[in-house]
């Protein structure tokens, strides 16, 4: 479909809402690599949504510069800017009087694509978010479940092939199981398209699951910026440690792969009778098998046993990641 994402640079952004006694964004500078999936994490009121909305011009900062793909956005007409940036919100905001296909086609129509191209694109997007085009194209938003609505919301945001996607707590209103599925889908889509994605959430587990990089925010400022493992292992302040519950070792195990921590099998056939995990599974799952009563867990790659994990291996991997 499309390839790549644009880098985004924020320089000394200040936002103060009229009548507010303190700044909503208080001097934020941030450099985001093209193609990264970056999560803005923090409690309500920390400024994460406001910061996101400065990037597509829904909020105008009092001072500071925003550069998308090296170009400053002040001076670009806000509507033009937004048509090139995908935007997904928690409330989804599908138009109830338009079909799924018409909703997805909003931005392509605004920028004047022809009908045939829009039709092809709409079907491709429905497939991308795993909704069968023939079944879903002509449905109305009210005929969809919450999870399906948000899939359409994501498809709509990606319609005009943006190289930057902004998401404001997109999965906050769906139930836990659907949320996990949508998070996996988002990772898959991100890997397929390489779009730069900025994702706002207050859900720590969600952030750890999907992020390449996490931006921890508090009171309008960035407190820490780093990979999930880095932020968990080396929280910059007691606030970050508390927010992420960084002392929780099991949480860190969720970020480590069994395949990266395993040792070679001592001998062929030694794994007989051991429980199995996949190399792509997290160490948390391996630990769970060990706690079930096994001394060793066999780690599979495909159909073959590739290695072994014991309590000591898990502990060693955890210490190495700190």
């Amino acid at each position, binding site marked *: 479909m499309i390839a790549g994402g644009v880098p985004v640079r924020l320089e000394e952004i200040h936002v103060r809402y009229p009548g507010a006694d303190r700044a909503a964004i208080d001097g934020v500078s941030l450099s985001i690599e093209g193609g990264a999936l970056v999560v803005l994490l923090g409690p309500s009121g920390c400024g994460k949504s406001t910061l996101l909305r400065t990037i*597509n011009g*829904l909020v105008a900062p009092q001072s500071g510069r925003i550069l998308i793909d090296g170009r400053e956005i002040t001076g670009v007409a806000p*509507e*033009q*800017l*937004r*048509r*090139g940036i995908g*935007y997904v*919100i928690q*409330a*989804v*905001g*599908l*138009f*109830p*009087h338009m079909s799924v296909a018409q909703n997805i086609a*909003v*931005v392509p129509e*605004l920028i004047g694509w022809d009908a045939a191209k829009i039709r092809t694109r709409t079907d491709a997007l429905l497939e991308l978010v795993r909704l069968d085009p023939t079944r879903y194209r002509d449905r*109305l938003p*009210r005929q969809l479940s919450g999870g399906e609505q948000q899939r359409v919301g994501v498809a*709509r*945001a990606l319609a005009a092939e943006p190289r930057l996607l902004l998401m404001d707590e997109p999965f906050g209103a769906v139930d836990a199981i659907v949320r996990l599925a949508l998070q996996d889908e988002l990772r898959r889509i991100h890997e397929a398209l390489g779009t730069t994605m900025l994702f706002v959430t207050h859900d720590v587990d969600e952030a750890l699951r999907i992020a390449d990089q996490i931006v921890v925010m508090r009171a309008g400022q960035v407190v820490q910026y780093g990979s999930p493992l880095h932020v968990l292992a080396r929280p910059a302040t007691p606030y970050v440690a508390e927010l992420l519950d960084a002392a929780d070792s099991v949480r860190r195990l969720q970020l480590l792969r069994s395949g990266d921590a395993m040792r070679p099998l001592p001998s062929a056939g030694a794994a007989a009778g051991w429980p199995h995990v996949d190399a792509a599974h997290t160490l948390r799952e391996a630990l769970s098998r060990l706690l079930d009563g096994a001394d060793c867990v066999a780690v599979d790659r495909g159909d073959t046993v590739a290695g072994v994990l014991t309590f000591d291996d898990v502990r060693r991997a955890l210490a190495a990641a700190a």
Partner: protein
Amino acid sequence: MLDLALHVRDHLLLAGAALALALLAGLPAGVWAARSDRFRQLALGTINVGRVIPSLAVLALMLPLLGIGFWPALVALTLLAVPPIAINTDIGLRGVPAAMVEAARGLGMTQGQVRARAEWPLALPVVFAGVRTATVEVIASATLAAFIGGGGLGEYILNGLAEADTQQLLEGAVSVSILALGAEALLGALERRLSTSVWGPA
């Protein structure tokens, strides 16, 4: 019978003209009220005071200003029809979910596109309900125009009362009822279709 047709025509002409004027005044007033809390309070206050005055009294109050005939009746009926249109326009526009407007803006719609493609289609069923109310009220109340020489089906009722002519009285009363009920049924069906097309079956 030809006479009845002429009176029906006059009645509908009067009601239709009043409705057209009321739309011209009520829609912009409603839009303004939806965008400005101050204007909304002012407008609602005025409407509430205005509603206390009976329609017949409004007609009477027009006499010294506009004399008798079609014009004072038109003004009085227009005043009657503006409030439901303005109020429902205000409610309809304010009732558009904030998420819709946020999504529309976020997708890159201009202010005008947000209004034309998101706000108005969603507000329309409620606005239309106001137009329906106004239409039925105006058709029914246009009967009173006969009191000040404004013509219409009210003449049958006035004459019927004056001459104790039950047949004439009923001709007028039944005709007005049929017109009002017919408008109610027709516009009500349209309104349900509109609402269903936006929000789904109730």
